[in-house]
């Protein structure tokens, strides 16, 4: 499965700046991670008592694709995201990444399958710096055990240094390079959101699932977010955006899925979805 | 053997009272206070002081002990709970109640001394009554009355209904105009009253001893965990089970391993049925 579908020329040219060339050579990762191809959710259903929050919803997220998941409040999009990431157990259905079935995998195992996520309300470690927070994502690829770390053996120190370099580059990449040493509880809303994205990227994921990333951002910040997400696609990462902000979704997504009351009502390209009468009815009210 | 059973029932009644006190405080604050056991200690010491040392009439001692319990309950709320609940750190109240418990225990130890002192006779009775000695049936009868009183309070009085409302959904209660702060303070006063009366009644069983607090905090908690957090019936059953278990085990195997047996019971329940016998499976554990 190829990871780079043909797409319009990316907004930023890759090799233009010398720093990029130098940067990419500096941190070849110690352990090459294989990039996954597809995250396939089939017929996911989740009930809370008698309420069916998610009703047999299927969705495929490909590497190198931006997939939007929209729907009015209460449509089940956040619940669906929580099913994908393991915060809720599915009642019915399967979640598969390439050949691996992760339907029963607990939350902390999902990163192992290349899945990263951000949260609607950013979950950061306020007492640590921006850089430290981003480095947390490196845990997935840190192999040093407790004793190794306690004795500061070479591998532990090397891994720490590599995670630091990677996190710093990613933070510069999302635009937080000037506040690496700021304590996370002093960040404003947009900075928190971008930090969470950087942390997710430090995990070297194949798929990153963004939970209402545009919420609370200014027009300018949403523009920056869009550029970042498009760049992620160019790099072969699969992005799922759960979003309320339909303009943003229709602008950058390759495919869009719409939910209402837990069921999928339309799936297709942004144009197809945007012009679908059922979607219009649901969003603009009856 | 009969003595062991009666002793078990009596001490079990005391544990049940502690578990009830936990429930009352937890219902309005979602806090399990380390000071719970110390309410009983304070009232026992005050009662012994008033009657034993100051030679005041039993009635005065009773009201004094009950008042001491109420005051200590209120102090717990104002000092250790109120300010702390405003901050989001959920472990902070554990530290504050732990600190307050230490202060009161050590303070009483400094004033009263660290040796257990005998609690005076409340009703004229010689010491040959065996299993009919008041040190057994006083706590049993008192706790039975207290439990009935508590149930009547919750079900028959307006205040009680407000309590239940606050315990089930504090946010909604506040939206309806209930002063949740005051309700919480009153519930701590009620727990103090409960502990004050029960501690006074059980004084002849436990002696007036400064270190009683911590032991009762732990054993009352075990009774609570066995019976189920939030259930008053569970508190009583849990207390009786714990009391009988330790008493009978002491009878057969000697008293050296009382605490170990009690904790063994706790661990068994926490592993097998963590919500307790009567607890709600969905109860959010503290």
């Amino acid at each position: 499965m190829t990871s780079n579908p043909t797409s319009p020329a990316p907004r930023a040219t890759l090799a233009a700046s010398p720093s990029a060339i130098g940067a990419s050579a500096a941190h070849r990762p110690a352990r090459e991670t294989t990039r996954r191809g597809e995250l396939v959710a089939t017929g996911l259903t989740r009930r809370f008592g008698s309420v069916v929050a998610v009703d047999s919803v299927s969705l495929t997220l490909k590497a190198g694709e931006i997939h939007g998941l929209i729907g009015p409040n209460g449509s089940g999009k956040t619940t669906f995201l929580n099913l994908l990431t393991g915060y809720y157990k599915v009642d019915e259905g399967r979640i598969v990444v390439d050949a691996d079935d992760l339907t029963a995998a607990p939350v902390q195992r999902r990163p192992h399958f290349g899945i990263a996520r951000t949260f609607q309300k950013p979950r950061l470690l306020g007492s640590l710096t921006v850089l430290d927070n981003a480095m947390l994502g490196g845990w997935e690829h840190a192999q040093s055990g407790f004793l190794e770390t306690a004795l500061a053996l070479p591998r532990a120190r090397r891994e720490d240094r590599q995670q630091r370099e990677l996190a710093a580059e990613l933070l510069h990449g999302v635009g937080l390079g000037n506040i690496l040493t700021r304590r996370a509880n002093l960040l404003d809303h947009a900075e928190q959101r971008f930090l969470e994205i950087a942390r997710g990227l430090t995990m070297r994921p194949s798929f990153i699932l963004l939970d209402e990333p545009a919420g609370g951002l200014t027009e300018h910040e949403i523009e920056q977010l869009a550029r970042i997400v498009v760049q992620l696609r160019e790099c072969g990462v699969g992005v799922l955006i759960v979003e309320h902000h339909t303009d943003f979704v229709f602008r950058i997504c390759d495919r869009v899925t719409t939910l209402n009351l837990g069921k999928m009502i339309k799936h297709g390209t942004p144009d197809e979805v945007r012009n679908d009468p059922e979607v219009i009815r649901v969003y603009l009210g009856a | 053997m009969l003595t062991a059973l009666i002793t078990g029932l009596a001490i079990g009644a005391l544990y049940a009272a502690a578990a009830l006190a936990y429930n009352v405080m937890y219902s309005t604050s979602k806090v399990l206070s380390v000071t719970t056991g110390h309410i009983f200690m304070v009232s026992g010491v005050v009662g012994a002081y008033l009657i034993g040392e100051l030679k005041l009439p039993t009635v005065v001692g009773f009201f004094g002990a009950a008042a001491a319990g109420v005051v200590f309950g209120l102090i717990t709320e104002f000092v250790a709970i109120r300010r702390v609940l405003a901050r989001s750190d959920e472990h902070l109240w554990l530290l504050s109640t732990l600190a307050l418990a230490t202060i009161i225990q050590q303070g009483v130890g400094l004033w009263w001394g660290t040796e257990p002192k005998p609690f005076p006779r409340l009703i004229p009775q010689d010491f040959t009554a065996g299993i009919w000695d008041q040190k057994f049936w006083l706590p049993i009868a008192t706790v039975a009355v207290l439990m009935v009183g508590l149930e009547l309070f919750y079900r028959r009085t307006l205040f009680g209904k407000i309590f239940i409302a606050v315990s089930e959904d504090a946010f909604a209660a506040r939206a309806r105009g209930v002063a949740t702060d005051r309700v919480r303070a009153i519930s701590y006063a009620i727990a103090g009253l409960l502990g004050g009366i029960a501690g006074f009644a059980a004084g002849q069983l436990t002696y007036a001893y400064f270190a009683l607090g911590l032991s009762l905090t732990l054993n009352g908690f075990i009774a609570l965990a066995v019976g189920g957090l939030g259930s008053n019936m569970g508190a009583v059953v849990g207390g009786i089970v714990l009391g009988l278990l330790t008493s009978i085990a002491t009878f057969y195997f000697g008293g050296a391993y009382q605490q170990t047996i009690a904790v063994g019971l706790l661990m068994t329940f926490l592993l097998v049925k963590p919500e307790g016998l009567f607890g709600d499976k969905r109860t959010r554990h503290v």
Partner: protein
Amino acid sequence: MNSHQGRLAVLLVGLVALATLPFWAHDPYQVHLATLIGAYWILVAGLNLVVGYTGLLSIGHVGLLAIGSYAFAILVDHHGANPYVAMLAAGAIGGVCGFILGLPSLRLPGFYFAMATMAFSMIVSEFLLAQDSLTGGGAGIAVPGFNKPFDTPNGLFWLVMLIAAFVTWLTWNVSRLMWGRAMIALRDSDVAAAAVGVPVFSIKLIVYTFSGVTAAVAGALFGSLQSYVTPETFHFELGLFFFICIVIGGRGAIIGPLLGTIVLTALPEVVAPLAKLGQFFYGALLLLVVLLVPEGIGNLVKIVREKIRPRRLEKHVVAPDLARLAAAIGNRSAS
């Protein structure tokens, strides 16, 4: 950076002063006190990872201290073991006990876990009293000293200092490398921790086991220093004291709890009225700290500094550098 070099210099001077303490101390009692602080710190350093970094409220660690003391004494006196080997064996036993205690307890929520650790320390007391053929029961047990070259009070002081320095270095490493961030994530946001793949339970168990080892080693040294211990020596309040040192010192740091241990151990010695108050003072101090400076006094300096000189946080417009972003992510094809 000047402040960094300044701090290094202070540290160096402090270390030299510490190493030469027996020579400039006024009387042997001060050496005894310093050794005691060192032994306490060995336990607190390990417990710091558990409480200050991972956020677990273990208030019963005194039980592990007791196990270390008694195991050491029994191995040397009843079985003729070499004291150094016995100390390491005691550490191993402490680790096993920490593991066994942690296994069922670490899954429990905060209050339940705290109660479980408190119950553990009470069980240890019961056990020590009851098994009097092994432990001497209420009468207690004599704890032997070490062999050459650490067989004098000064020698014990240096042994404790060496081990304390080593343990401090271990915990410092853990705190500043990847494990440190993972532990803080467990403390402050287990949602974030799970989202990045941190295995919550096994990290807690490993750190807790480590703290059992350090506590038991501290117990061996502590017992040797006191030369005679009883179950009363390991009353619950002592476990509370260790816990308070960390909370007051400040979480998420090594220096804070270290200073906390030093100050809180030495204070009752220096200020006589406080000695009479004893635990009452510690409880009152804990309450004050929790109500006024919950982050701990160690972090108070940071907080005060930020209040006095509020750095104007320049509001930069977020400007992504897509080239660096792309380079960092890399462009790898799928398997």
